[in-house]
């Protein structure tokens, strides 16, 4: 399948999803669906770096927050239409990814992972001390009630996130099938051998961190509008950091399907669990699942299914 055939197929599926939820005629499903889609984008973005090149990013919450606060900043300074703000957020967080990668990726993989962990703490410190974007108290972002063509603004935001998910998945799949993807895979399997065979490993790693960071930021950009109130503790919370790693690993990191499966399953599970049990238990469940999967099924759900399929044949 060529990438544009995939894009068309994905768009048709997305349109069907949108029509289906609209037919249910209940705004709760749009909220819940938006959250799940946001995790689809985050998980896919994480997997571009983590799954394809094998470099672990623990700072998903930080990149997500860069996107969120780019919107908060722009909304206060010079409000743009949501798709343009997503582009702006993508540029800013992509640059953060590039800078982080440039400083740490020349060293052993563990240093990059540690630096991303610490990045979240520092960015939170900066945001808390920066009163223009609300500081520790948080910021209110008023969203319009309606918009042309789509009508309800929540439906519009859902549609935007749906489009972003389609773009992220198409990009991930296109990378997988391209020479870029093969380059990434050589880094994951044996970086030393790749370097020795003339693969420009640093350049490829920087492309991966930039792309991955940019998509994470984009996933965060519409967040202030859907929540209407943004506060550092919520944005930098446990939820985003643990989910964007757990979803691809539980789904399977080898291809674009894994993060999609993981995000839909875990995302839906959490939407149900948040309503029925507390959100702390939620994070606990995700953490336990993550540990269980890396020990028992390191190739994720997709890996388990593939294995079962092969045995059957």
């Amino acid at each position, binding site marked *: 399948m060529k990438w544009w055939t995939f894009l068309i197929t994905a768009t048709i599926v997305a349109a069907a999803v949108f029509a289906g939820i609209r037919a249910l005629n209940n705004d709760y499903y749009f909220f819940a669906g938006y959250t799940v889609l946001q995790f689809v984008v985050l998980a896919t973005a994480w997997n571009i770096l*983590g799954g394809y090149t*094998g470099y*672990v990013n*623990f700072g998903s919450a930080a990149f997500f927050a860069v996107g969120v606060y780019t919107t908060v900043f722009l909304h206060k300074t010079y409000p743009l239409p949501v798709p343009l703000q997503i582009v702006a957020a993508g540029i800013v967080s992509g640059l953060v990814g590039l800078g982080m990668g440039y*400083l*740490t990726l020349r*060293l052993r*993989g*563990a*240093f990059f*992972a*540690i*630096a991303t*962990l*610490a*990045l*979240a*703490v*520092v960015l*939170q*410190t*900066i945001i*808390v*001390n920066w009163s223009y974007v609300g500081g520790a108290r948080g910021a209110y972002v008023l969203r319009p009630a309606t918009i042309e063509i789509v009508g309800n603004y929540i439906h519009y935001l859902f549609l935007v996130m749906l489009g972003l998910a389609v773009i992220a998945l198409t990009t991930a799949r296109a990378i997988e099938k391209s020479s870029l993807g093969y380059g990434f895979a050589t880094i994951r399997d044996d970086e030393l051998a790749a370097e020795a065979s003339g693969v420009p490993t640093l350049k490829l790693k920087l492309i991966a961190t930039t792309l991955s960071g940019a998509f994470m930021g984009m996933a965060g950009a519409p967040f202030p509008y859907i929540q209407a109130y943004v506060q550092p503790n919520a944005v930098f919370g*446990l939820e985003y950091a*643990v989910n964007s*790693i*757990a979803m691809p*690993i539980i789904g399977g*990191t080898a291809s674009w399907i894994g993060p999609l499966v993981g995000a839909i399953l875990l995302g839906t599970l959490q939407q149900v669990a948040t309503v029925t049990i507390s959100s*702390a*238990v939620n*994070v*606990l469940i*995700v*953490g*336990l699942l*993550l*540990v269980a999967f*890396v*020990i028992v099924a*390191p190739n994720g759900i997709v890996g388990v299914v593939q294995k079962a399929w092969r045995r059957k044949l």
Partner: protein
Amino acid sequence: MSGELLLNAVIAGILLGGFYAAVTVGISISFGILDIVNIAHPAFVIVGSYVTYYVNAQFGIDPILAGILVLPLFYGLGAGIYQVYYVSFERRGKEALSGLAFFFGILFIAEVLLILAFGVDYRDVRASYIGQSLNFGIFHFPLRMLVPCLASLAMFAFLLIFLTRTFIGRAIMAVAQDQLALRLMAADPVKIKRIAFAISIATAALAGSFLIIIQPVEPSVGREYIGRVFAICVLGGLGSLTGTLIGAILLGIVESITATFYGPSWAPAVAFGLLLLTLALRPAGIMGR
């Protein structure tokens, strides 16, 4: 910038640095020597704080004594975790991605379990010396800082002697360099690594009981220490205990001066800045080869 304020900030920084050395020495062993990237280390520090809090509140035992009493518990926990890590990742050669994700998961599980058990309120301990201060003219040594610092240095010295003077200690230092030679000396590398990792978790727990003397603790405090411990470890030079001590005191002083003159809310950013600077300028660290 007044001289007296600066001097007292430096003193506070040295006291803080001594404590940071206790938090980091475990990472120096696990990350520096064993090459196990245990990002959950600070979570064990906080678990140690809470166990100390519990023992102190229930039985009124001195926090440091309480920390020493529960050491075997954490040694056992560490040995168990290493066993799982070894069987699941190290033996399969998958420690890079899966191993990191494993410790990341443990970090979250520990934090959430603490939230569920104790809530998100700050907890503190009672001891006669908390709140008092030794004063020499213009110099102030708050005992709340001095006692943990001295206890940290004692623990540090004990570990240094253990690692350089005993057979097991030397075997731990050797395990990173030549596992075959270690086998020829009739020492099983896996067993040596298990002992070393268990010790590293035990030091984390004891550092936790020092922490709760210095400041009240809530479950997410640990995350601030992730940047700190790795910054110190890298700054000092991987695998060098002396380097760890120098790095810890350096970070303590810089943080204390920042907190005194620019406000404590900026302190967490200092460690990260130092970490990035070290990685960019001299990745081998101060004592690294």
